[in-house]
């Protein structure tokens, strides 16, 4: 028994090789995990003491931070927004990208398909700050294209950055716009990997195009769809901070439709300097994310064992 656990020279060298990354994980992944206890404390930096010591010596307040957080109207709004946007993003995004992949795989001209793919991939490589400038060039109240167009049509210009009702649509559009090239390419890679003999057999049996999609392509795509689905469900409590903060330019009147958990955590931490609320919201986000990804994985394991993530 003891002999089995003796590390060979090989093992020691491999451990050495893994050491720098291990230190990285301890500092940037595991220390913050330990730091979540801050959500149950009334954190005050003690003068002349290190952060950890201040943290450990701060007063325990139990779940007070969570209680007060949920007494504010912000809590309900940010949870509603985060979950609702993600649910729509996941479903719509998946439907659109799978459909696009199926369609582009059928184009006669492979060259056209290649060019289109490349062009559609562009938004994926841009930062949300750049995207926010794109959006501004269309939505700016006095100079944006949309308002110039409205004026030419004799209609009243709209203060886009002050009118919440348009933004759920805008945000969905931007999210789909930015991610569809990536998603399409990902599914397309799986589609082109499907064994051609399956289709040949189907054609001999007289299967129509639609039947081929339904009985061959989609079932073959199922594992990758499921894996991507679990991964996005696991992130249902996280949101793209850039999309919800930078793109709407942190506009006050839009808070009701743009405040997600990430936006709130950032604003509570940096703006209001409210570490209690901020850390409570952040911890809740992490814990709920852990629960949802485990649940989603459990369900997928029941449906199709091989597609499970872990």
């Amino acid at each position, binding site marked *: 028994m003891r002999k089995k*656990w003796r590390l*060979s020279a*090989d*093992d020691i060298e491999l451990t050495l*090789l*893994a050491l*720098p*990354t291990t230190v*990285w994980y301890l500092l*940037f*992944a595991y*220390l913050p*995990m330990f*730091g*979540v206890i*801050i*959500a149950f404390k009334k954190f005050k930096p003690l003068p002349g003491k290190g*952060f950890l010591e201040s943290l450990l010596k701060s007063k325990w307040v139990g779940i007070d931070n969570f209680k007060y957080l949920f007494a504010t109207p912000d809590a309900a709004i940010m949870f509603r927004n985060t979950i609702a946007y993600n649910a729509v993003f996941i479903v719509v995004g998946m439907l659109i990208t799978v459909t696009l992949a199926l369609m582009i795989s059928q*184009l*006669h001209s492979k060259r*056209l398909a290649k060019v*289109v793919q*490349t*062009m*559609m991939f*562009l*938004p994926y*490589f*841009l*930062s949300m*700050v*750049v995207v926010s*400038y*794109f959006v501004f*060039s*269309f939505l*700016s109240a006095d*100079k*944006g*294209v949309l308002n*110039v167009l409205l004026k030419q049509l004799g209609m009243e210009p709209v203060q886009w950055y002050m009118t919440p009702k348009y933004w759920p649509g805008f945000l969905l559009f931007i999210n789909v*716009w930015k991610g569809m090239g990536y998603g399409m*390419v*990902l599914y397309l*890679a799986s589609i082109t990997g499907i064994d051609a003999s399956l289709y*040949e057999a189907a*054609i001999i049996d007289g299967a129509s*195009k639609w039947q081929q999609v339904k009985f061959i392509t989609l079932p073959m795509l199922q594992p990758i769809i499921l*894996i991507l689905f679990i991964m996005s469900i696991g992130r249902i409590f996280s949101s793209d*901070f850039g999309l919800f903060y930078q793109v709407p330019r942190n506009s006050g009147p839009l808070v009701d439709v743009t405040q997600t958990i990430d936006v709130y*955590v*950032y604003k509570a*931490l940096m703006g209001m300097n409210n*570490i209690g609320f*901020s850390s409570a919201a*952040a911890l809740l*986000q992490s814990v709920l994310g*852990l629960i949802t*990804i485990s649940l989603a994985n459990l369900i997928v394991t029941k449906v199709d064992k091989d597609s499970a993530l*872990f």
Partner: protein
Amino acid sequence: MRKQKMDLDAVARFNRIAAPTNFFFSLFFILLALVCVVPLVFVAIISFSSNASIQKIGYSFMPLEWSLDAYKYIWRERSSVGTAFLVSIGITVIGTITGLFLTSTMGYVLSRPTFKLRRFFTMLIFIPMLFGGGLVAAYLINTRMLGLQNSYLALLLPVAVSSFNCIILRTYFQTTVPDSIIESAKIDGARQLLIFFQMILPISLPALATVGLMLSIGYWNDWFSTMLYIGSDHQDMYPLQYVLISIERNMDFLTKNAQFMSPDSSRLKLPAESTRMAIVMVVVLPIAMSYPYFQKYFISGLTIGSVKG
């Protein structure tokens, strides 16, 4: 063999969608592709529009007057924009190298089937994929404990490693590098460090390119770290992405050197609108010019990464 190939073509031809359907699909995809690139073209047009035109008819695909003022202005202010550009490049290069080193060593270690601590290290990178400490804890630890506030390290280190990238490289080493060459190197007396740096890394360039490119794009596009860790009293440390944020509402970042300008140059009125868009172009162009060539590495990375293990 040749006959078989011809049969396959015939089948493929027979199974194609009808010509009218193909026409509509093609048209649809051309439109969709345009939707994806038009905003960038539009921003480019605005950056070449004259200030007078923008004031008069707003942002337009057909400005009344073209002008290079924005780019001339940026060139004049190269001490600030140029510095930000260099900061962006420096962060991207150093960050990518650091990230690649940390990711590939861990990926290699995880790929060794006989390694006794393999399960331990697998758990080490797997747990953070499921649970994280969140922004607040990370921010407080990075600033108050590790002293990363207003330091380039804050832009480099926290985003250098991701478990996802480690898994991509692990999968690559596992599936592509034959065990036998490592075993034979060991019999020849080579140490693991030597094997890794002199044998494994050189034959793994495609996978390293994939992860390296993902890292580079991540660093080049990162503005959130600057927003968190670099204070407004350290503007000279801003990378380009953050310059874009800081000039969103006012052009202070660019005009702060105004007092040192010669009387001659101060007469050149700041074309604020087009200058903003010109800086967007400076940020985007390096990516827009190069991504058509490297996208294939991305695609292979995406597909390796989605293989679980």
